C-alpha cells in the first residue's frame, strides 16, 4: 500500500481550494515578492547596509537613498532588506525547529497513548503555564543577545503548540480503518507512524508552521525593540524600529519603513496561514 497514492488527490483538492481563496493568494504573492526582494534588492543600490555617510545623516527619502538614511547616514533601503533576511531567517528557522521537535514529540505521545502519553502532555501543560516571553527575555539577558540565542530561546517553548496539534490529530485517526488495514498487511509500527499517521497530519503541520512564523517574527522584533535582538552592524526590522522611535517627530521615515515591512510580512503570513487552514480542513471553513 503506497501512502502517496492516497494523499495526492487530497493534496490536489486542497491546493485547488487554496487557489480559489483570494486573500490567501494575496498573502502568497506578497511573500514571494518579499523573498525575492530580500535576495536581490540590495544589488540595486550602490550603498551597503553598514556604510556610513556622516554628512548625509537623517536624509529624507530621495532618488539617491530611496528610503532615506539613518542617524549615521546609513542607507535605510539596504538595511531594510538586510532586516528582511534576518527577520525571515529567524521566523522560518524557529518555525522549522519547532516543527521537528513538535512533530516527533507529539507523534510519539499520540501513537503510544496511555500513561506515557498522559505524562508527556502534563509536561507540556506545565511548560505552557510558564510565561513564554518572560522566559525568553531572561534567557537572552543571561546568554547575551544574538541571532542564535534568539532562535534557541524562541524554540524552547515554541514546539509545544505543534506537539499538541499533532498528538490530537494522531489520537483522532489512529483507530481508523486504514491504519487497521496497514497493520493487517504487516506494516511495522514505525512504518505506520511515519507513512500513515504523520503523512495524514501534513496539512495541519504546514498550517501550523505557516502560522508560527509571524509569531516568531513578531517576538524577534519585539525583543530587538527591547534591545535584546541582533547587534550592530547587523539590523533586523525590530532594531531599526527601535532606533527610529526617538526620531519619530522629525525623521518619521526611519520608523515608518521597518514598521511597514514588519506589518506587511506578518499580514501576508497570517493570510496564507488562514487560507491553508481552510484549504486543508474544509470543515472549518465558514
Amino acid at each position, binding site marked *: 500500500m503506497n501512502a502517496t497514492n492516497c494523499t495526492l488527490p487530497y493534496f490536489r483538492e486542497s491546493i485547488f481550494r487554496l487557489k480559489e481563496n483570494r486573500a490567501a493568494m494575496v498573502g502568497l504573492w506578497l511573500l514571494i515578492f518579499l523573498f525575492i526582494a530580500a535576495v536581490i534588492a540590495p544589488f540595486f543600490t550602490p550603498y551597503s547596509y553598514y556604510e556610513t555617510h556622516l554628512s548625509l545623516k537623517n536624509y529624507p527619502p530621495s532618488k539617491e537613498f530611496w528610503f532615506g538614511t539613518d542617524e549615521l547616514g546609513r542607507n535605510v533601503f539596504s538595511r531594510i532588506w538586510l532586516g528582511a533576511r534576518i527577520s525571515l531567517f529567524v521566523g522560518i528557522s524557529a518555525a522549522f525547529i519547532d516543527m521537528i521537535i513538535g512533530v516527533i514529540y507529539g507523534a510519539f505521545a499520540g501513537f503510544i497513548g496511555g500513561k506515557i502519553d498522559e505524562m508527556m502532555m502534563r509536561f507540556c501543560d506545565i511548560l505552557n503555564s*510558564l510565561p513564554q516571553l*518572560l522566559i525568553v*527575555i*531572561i534567557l537572552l539577558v543571561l546568554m547575551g543577545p544574538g541571532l542564535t540565542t534568539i532562535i534557541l530561546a524562541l524554540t524552547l517553548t515554541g514546539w509545544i503548540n505543534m506537539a499538541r496539534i499533532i498528538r490530537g490529530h494522531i489520537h483522532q485517526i489512529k483507530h481508523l480503518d486504514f491504519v487497521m488495514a496497514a497493520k493487517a498487511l504487516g506494516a511495522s509500527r514505525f512504518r505506520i507512524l511515519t507513512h500513515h499517521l504523520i503523512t495524514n497530519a501534513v496539512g495541519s503541520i504546514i498550517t501550523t508552521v505557516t502560522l508560527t512564523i509571524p509569531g516568531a517574527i513578531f517576538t524577534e522584533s519585539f525583543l530587538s525593540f527591547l534591545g535584546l535582538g541582533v547587534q550592530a552592524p547587523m539590523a533586523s526590522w525590530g532594531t531599526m524600529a527601535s532606533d527610529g522611535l526617538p526620531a519619530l517627530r522629525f525623521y518619521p521615515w526611519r520608523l515608518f519603513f521597518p*514598521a511597514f515591512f514588519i*506589518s*506587511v510580512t506578518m*499580514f501576508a503570513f497570517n493570510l496564507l496561514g488562514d487560507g491553508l487552514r481552510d484549504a486543508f480542513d474544509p470543515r472549518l471553513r465558514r
Partner: protein
Amino acid sequence: MSWAYYLTYKFFTLIFSLFLVATATFVLMHVIPGDPFSQEQTIPEEILKSLMSHYELDQPLYKQYIHYLKGLIRFDLGPSFKYEGRMIQDIIREGFGVSATLGALALIISIVAGGTLGSLAALCRGKWQDWLSMLMAVIGMSVPSFILATLLQYVFAMKFNLLPIARWGEFRHMILPAVSLSAFPTAFIARLVRSNMVEILEQEYIVAAKARGLGTSKILLRHVVKNCILPVLSYLGPLFASIITGSFVIEKIFGIPGLGGWFVMSITNRDYTMIMGITLFYSAILMIAVFIVDLLSFSIDPRIRRNQ
C-alpha cells in the same frame, strides 16, 4: 470529575509551577558568572566581606535557596542591586497599580470591541460587514503593538494634537496606550467569537428556538451569547499574557511609570535581582489568572466536567 478533585489538582499544579519558576530563577541567578559587586573597581576585602554578609551571599547555596524561598512566601523579593536601599517588592507595589489600570482598560476594550466585531461578522456572514471586520482582525493580528503605538502617537499626538503624546495621570493619557495594547486581543477575540457564533447559529436548538417563535434578540441573548462566552473565557489566560508583555514596550513608548517600564529599565541596566523579581511576580499573576479562569470554565461548562 468532581469539583473538589479538579480544584485540588489545579491548585497543586499551580503551586508546583510557581515553585518551578522560583527555582529556575534562583538557579539562573547563580549561574551568572561573578557577583553583583565584581564590577566595582576595587573594593577593600573587608568591605566586600561585609557586603557579602549583608546580602547573605557568603552562606552556602542551599541555605541561600531556603532563605530565598522563605522570603518569597512572605512576598520578600530582596533588594535591588542597582538602586541602593530599594526593595523589589516596593517597586512592584508602586508600579503595578499603574500597569494594572492600563491593563484593565485594555482588557475591557478588547472584550467589548472584539465581541462586537465578531458577532457583527457572524450575523452578517458573507456580507461586507463580515468581510470588513475580518480584514480588520487580520490587520490587528499583524501589526505589532509597539508599531501601532508609535503610529497612534504620530497621528493623534504629533499631527493633530488631539491627545497627549506621553505621561500618565488623567484618563486622556490612558486612551492611546490602552488602544494599542488591546489591538491584538481584540482581533483575536473577534475571530474567536465569529467562528463560534457561526457554528452555534447552525445548531438545531437555534432552529428549534426560531420554530418556537422566539424573537431574534431573545435567541441571541439566551442561546448564542451564552454559548459564545466560554471560548472567550478560556482565551482570557493568554490574553492576560499578551497584555502584560505588551505593556513592557507600550509603557516605554508612552513614558508610563508602570511595572513594565521598570522591567525594561532593569533589562537595560542588567539589574539581575530586579529582572528575576519582576519575572517571578508576573509569572505568579499569570498563573493565578489562568487558575481562576480554569475554575470558572469548569464551573460554567458541563462539557469540561465530562471530558476531563
